[in-house]
């Protein structure tokens, strides 16, 4: 977290409106390699929109978002999809696992979409499931496992492609404290080991406590503690 590190993600004056309401109204932030940053703020403050913009899923109305020096808005859908495969990982509150696939296949999916053959992809996926202490459910479908297990599978899937940034949107939102803490510990440990940065959207302080620093979003404006200080 030194100032010398090149910023991985750089957002400047990002604005995004859904209809007449501005979800983001001039957000600035910097994410550096390997750091865990919590994006905090009350519900409706624009946290999730900010995350979606940073990940290139949603295009801001104005402002710049650069990933490793490249403007996200200027990329084609194919390029941004490729970025999601190779550089980004995602953990959402729920609904991001494909219900038709087994947990192992779900985790192997980003690798397979990047062209890895089935066997090596599933071997790597199995390793990650083991690391996240859910190796026993690799053959089950998402509908057959608990919420905590599902989130750990999602973490495994987010990290299997060795991403530079993991975007986590309320990853513990549907879990109780115990399971939530467990997921957070596994997520941050694994991200630390692989050197991935984590953008963690949460409104829970105990979850945010797993971060290195926090960014507060209020009324669509973000306060980056790094920039303030």
């Amino acid at each position, binding site marked *: 977290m030194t100032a010398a590190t090149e910023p991985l993600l750089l957002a400047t004056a990002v604005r995004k409106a859904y209809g007449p309401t501005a979800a983001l109204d001039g957000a600035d932030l910097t994410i550096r390699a390997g750091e865990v940053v919590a994006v905090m703020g009350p519900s409706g403050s624009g946290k999730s929109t900010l995350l979606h913009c940073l990940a290139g899923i949603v295009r801001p109305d104005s402002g710049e978002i650069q990933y490793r020096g490249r403007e996200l808005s200027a990329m084609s*859908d194919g390029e941004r999809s490729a970025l999601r495969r190779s550089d980004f990982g995602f953990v959402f509150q729920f609904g991001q696992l494909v219900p038709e696939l087994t947990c192992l296949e779900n985790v192997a999916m980003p690798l397979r979409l990047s062209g890895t053959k089935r066997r090596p992809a599933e071997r790597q996926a199995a390793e990650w499931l083991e690391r996240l202490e859910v190796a026993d459910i690799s053959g089950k479908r998402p509908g057959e496992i608990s919420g905590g297990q599902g989130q750990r599978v999602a973490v495994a899937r987010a990290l299997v492609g060795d991403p530079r940034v993991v975007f986590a949107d309320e990853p513990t939102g549907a879990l109780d404290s115990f399971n939530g803490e467990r997921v957070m510990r596994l997520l941050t440990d694994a991200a630390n080991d692989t050197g991935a940065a984590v953008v963690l959207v949460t409104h829970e302080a105990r979850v945010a406590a797993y971060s290195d620093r926090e960014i507060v979003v209020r009324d669509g404006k973000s306060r980056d503690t790094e920039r303030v200080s």
Partner: protein
Amino acid sequence: MSSPHGGARYEPFAGFDSVGGGSGRPPAPDARTVGLRAWIRDLALGARFAAGGGREGWTRTALTAVGVGLGVALLLLTAAVPAMMHTRDQKRVAREPSSAAYIAHPGASTLLSEETGTTYHGDGITGLLVHPEGPKAQLPPGVTAWPGTGRMVVSPALERLLASSPLLRERIPYPITGTIGHAGLMGPAELYYYAGSDQLVARDSTYHHGNADRIAGFGAHSNSAVMGPTFDLLLIVVLVVLLLPVAVFIGTAVRLGGERRDRRLAALRLVGADIRTTHRIAAGEALLGAVFGLLVGALLFLVGRQLASHVTIRDISAYPGDMAPNPALTVLIVLAVPIASIAVTLAGLRGTTIEPLGVVRQGVGRRRRLWWRLLLPAAGLALLAPLFGKVKGDVSLNEYQVAAGAVLLLFGVTAVLPWVVEAAVGRLRGGPVVWQLATRRLQLNSSSSARMVSGVTVAVAGAIALQMLFHGVDGDFVSSTGADTSRAQAVVNGEVGDSAQVASYVRSIAAAKGVSQVYGFARADATRPDASTLKRDETTDYPYLPVDVAGCPTLRQLARITSCAPGSVFLVPPDDDPYVHGDYVKFVRPGGLVDLNSPDSGAYHGKARLWRIPAGAVTAHPLPQPSGAQEWGVLATPEALGKAALSTPQAQITVSVDPKQPDAIERVRNAVAAFGPAVRMYTLHDTKEKSNYIQLRRGLYAGATLTMGLIGASLLVTMLEQLRERRKLLAVLVAFGTRRSALAWSVLWQTAVPVVLGLVLACAGGIGLGAALLAMVGGPFHVDWAGMGAMSGIGAGVVLLVTLLSLPPLWRLMRADGLRTE
């Protein structure tokens, strides 16, 4: 702060992840190569989705497969029809006696044959009396050994029939020595036999004497019957009307589970699948359903083919092996069905953009345009219009033009439907809560409900059009024969020696149980008295002057006669045929001479046998005969002719039977059968229907019923899927205190509104197409209101049934646990 190339690379576009966003630019340097492997991987992944996903996924795939399979089976059947017809034709020709040239003398390979047919309880039985004249005589197809004299080989169906019908056995009494194999039969239900006979005498070169043909073997030239352009038109329209709803159904079937699929694809977009990848995956899903559908279709076709061998429609049955789809058409079906299903899937995805966070449907709020939808039926009409009034006689029909026109007209109905539903539903306001729930839901997503009923619409429209066409061409196919079946039920005719033999035939027939009246006469020909002196060549014209010989009671049946005694002769003028009338006036007059040695094959043979018409001959008016014909010429009692010999007299016997004795006609047949193969019997009918037409109509009704059932099944699936999507909402409404019956009513309205609109449109489209088809055959415009009502009723009934069937699941979904999040 700004990236080195940020400004230069930025270009404005409508929205993130829009389909067009990335397609215009060259592939990015870091984009993964999309090669064959990616295609295979994504298709396999899609197939994995279609096959996996637990019970629900399987149900969806199975339904898709069944839907596609039924369509494929129908397509295969259609592809098999030409080959089947061809095989039947070939088999029919192969067993026909070859009669290329007259054979005067018996040889090592010649045989004598004579066809002898009969009818038993309405089933036609064909028999061939045969007698091989040399050791090398060719066996008929399907027969391995000649039946000995007085013995026969039979088809398996005939063997069974004979075993169960003593009455028929009496008529065909020969001991059975073997059965006819597949090669010699057109279908398993065919009634056929070959009987050995030593009573056969070869006809002479003029075919005057003898009772059998000397032939060189079997296998004649094809002379398949042509039904004419009206029949072709009917066949084409029936196929279009049956296949089009199936096509629409396939389109609906591959879209089953669409919303769930979109969510799944959104989840994949999140982990980095680009739009093209998701399209390939969706294609893979559709592909698996289509491939399963092909397998199911092939299976259904094979099973159906086996079953079809047990079905006989109007004496026609077919062996499974003969129903072989044309290989080229089969390859086309195997390729076209999966490709079409992929195309439909991709077309369905065109209006939606699958984003990593969910699905964005475009065009919400954009009003549908009407003009291009009207273009389709207009184009169809434009194709059909040049044919108005042209379909008659022997003109050959441009099948493609007709098919394309009909398809466009019917597709026009489905194209206009979404616009009509949107336009109609958009104006609905207010009303009771139930109505409000239904109409608001429809306003939100009118296209899916329109799609749901489009199959029903096409089926009903097509069926209405066909009914109109059938009605219009009824007269073409059902022709009046003029026969009066209240006076007589059968006529018997055949060669006899003299009028005394006719009298003995009449006596034997009268002896059969159930015969109420029978009379007969001997018919012979006479010609001009100077016929023997005329130049004997082909161009010479010999007038035809019929001479009918019978006792007075019979003559009274033929003409209005006041007094008759042995020796009486009556002269009956022909009604209005100017050609024969001239001959009659010239030669048939009291005291006139005629030559009884009438040449019947164009050339005069032998010596003249002159007979003078008695001077006391009286002119009488003819009476119409039960067969519909009227006798004219000379009516004479046998005494009037004296010793004058008739040349080749024919027996003409008219039979009435007691209608209360159902087997009377069979007993008459038995009696006639005893007279030998030269004497035949025909039963009389008021009208004569061409059997192909009946088959066509039955096929249509069966097909329409099947299609409606199919559409009903797909409707049910779609409906259940929609209900599941909204289970939470339903549970909330119930928690509010909404009555369940209210929700059921809203579901019913939700289906009923598009269905009613669809049926109205179907009636309009059906009448339009029907009118166009009628105009083509030149028939008068006529709407079959009853038929239209029936078809619409069936359509509405299907929807009502589906709604009723969806109520129990709706009840289950509305239980309180629906509130639970999954």
